[in-house]
């Protein structure tokens, strides 16, 4: 394996992809078990599960596009759009359950006014909870996060495919890199976050530095892997 200019470009693409995943996780409104009980704002599952779900959908979409073209732009776009569709449908279905099954109004406890709609939030926060449901700002934030995650996943997948030409190997390797970055980011936000309006969002530079170090080490070995046979 010789490190020519193209290889360096591939390494950089993987690093940028990893960083997009790491920062994108911070946009996703994730509430863990409390949100599953409608006691916190966001989707009721763990950060990693949600990030992995949107990232894998992005990978599938990118892989499908890659089977018909080698042009990087449609591949990145379909990865990003695939992840956004997955995240949006999840948040929408979650919203239906919060609204029609649990019967909770969507309210954020982190801000007094929803930054997007300007609606007042505190009157709707149920006592003893830290908000519930997925308010408009969280929905928008989650869509941005999924865009970054899907774009990042596709950006990891593309250079891997260009070096080893093996879709299944590239996809699984990309999942490995994706999970490392998603977990590092989720450790940074300590489990739950509402989106870009959450005070915890200011921690993203820490995740950026962590994911940078981790992804560089992964990217250096990723480009040496062959497709086998």
């Amino acid at each position, binding site marked *: *394996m010789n490190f020519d200019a193209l290889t360096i470009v591939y390494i950089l693409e993987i690093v940028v992809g990893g960083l997009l995943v790491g920062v994108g996780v911070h946009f996703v409104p994730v509430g*863990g*078990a409390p949100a599953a009980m409608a006691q916190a704002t966001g989707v009721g599952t*763990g*950060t*990693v*599960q949600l990030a*992995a779900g949107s990232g894998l959908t992005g990978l599938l979409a990118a892989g499908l596009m890659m089977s018909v073209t080698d042009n990087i732009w449609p591949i990145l776009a379909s990865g990003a759009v695939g992840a956004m569709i997955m995240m949006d449908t999840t948040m929408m279905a979650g919203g239906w359950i919060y609204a029609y099954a649990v019967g909770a109004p969507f309210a954020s406890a982190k801000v007094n006014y929803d930054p997007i709609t300007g609606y007042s939030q505190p009157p709707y926060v149920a006592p003893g909870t830290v908000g519930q449901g997925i308010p408009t700002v969280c929905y928008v934030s989650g869509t941005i996060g999924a865009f970054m995650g899907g774009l990042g996943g596709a950006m990891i997948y593309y250079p891997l495919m260009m070096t080893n030409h*093996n879709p*299944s*190997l590239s996809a*699984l*390797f990309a*999942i*490995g*890199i*994706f*999970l*490392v970055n*998603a*977990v*590092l980011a*989720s*450790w*940074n936000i*300590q*489990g739950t976050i509402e989106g870009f309006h959450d005070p915890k969002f200011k921690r993203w530079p*820490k*995740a950026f*530095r*962590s994911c940078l*170090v*981790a992804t560089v*080490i*992964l990217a250096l*070995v*990723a480009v*040496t*892997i*062959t*497709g*086998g*046979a």
Partner: protein
Amino acid sequence: MTVGGGAGGAPSAIDAKKLRIYGIGGALVGIYLAAILNSVLGTDIFSILAAAGAVAAAVMGANAVRRVCGYGIGTGVPSIGMLALGMGIVGASFGLSTAEQLGVSMAGVIIALVYAMIFGYIVGAIANKVMGFNIPIMEEGLTDLSGAGAMAIIGWSYAISGSLAYADMVAKVFNTGYLAIVFICGGLAILHPFNANLGPDEKQDRTLVNGLMVGSLAVVAVGLCSLATLSTTAAIITIVIGAAAWYYFYVWYYRLVKRDAAAVVGTGLLPPSAL
């Protein structure tokens, strides 16, 4: 939550260093013994040994999860299991691919283990220094975890491919998609034990026996996969031994659950004045 892994409290506590030797040693012995016996005798029925080695690695990983998560990482236990397998899959494919390019496919396991452990140490250092976890055993725990992930992936993948050659691994495990099964079953064997047993009365032996039980189930799963890739005899051997081991550890685990549950003291009903 047991602080500091809580290994001191349990009567039959096994030291982490000892478990690391058992885990890594067991995995290396299992995988290499399977590879050597299979190639020398020209058969594939010894693939079960690699699967058993992977179970040893998974138990080491389960102990590392237990120690790290005992401090509380704020995101739930499954995230650390996914991290272990994420690091492991990168290490495993890098090790096997590099060994193939160097022309020594037998060295792939060692390269994978070394890379995975170094990477795990770095991630642990990042978590402590950059993110400020300040968990004293974070580096050590993630080193173990990453190594366990890589060994589990290689061991169980070997039980499907029946060969350490990278081309065989890619053709029989990656391209068929069976790696996804190894990924999830291996992840469960590492993350599930502590996730299922955590709490103030968590005991190391109960958690680790649960790990052996889930690991045996993963052996059954890879045995079913190997029906399509190996000889029927080899696959049946893997499935039967995996199922027998699962039953044995299930009974053992059930006994430990009963032992620990018997120590729970009833607090009685609320006093009449409170009703």
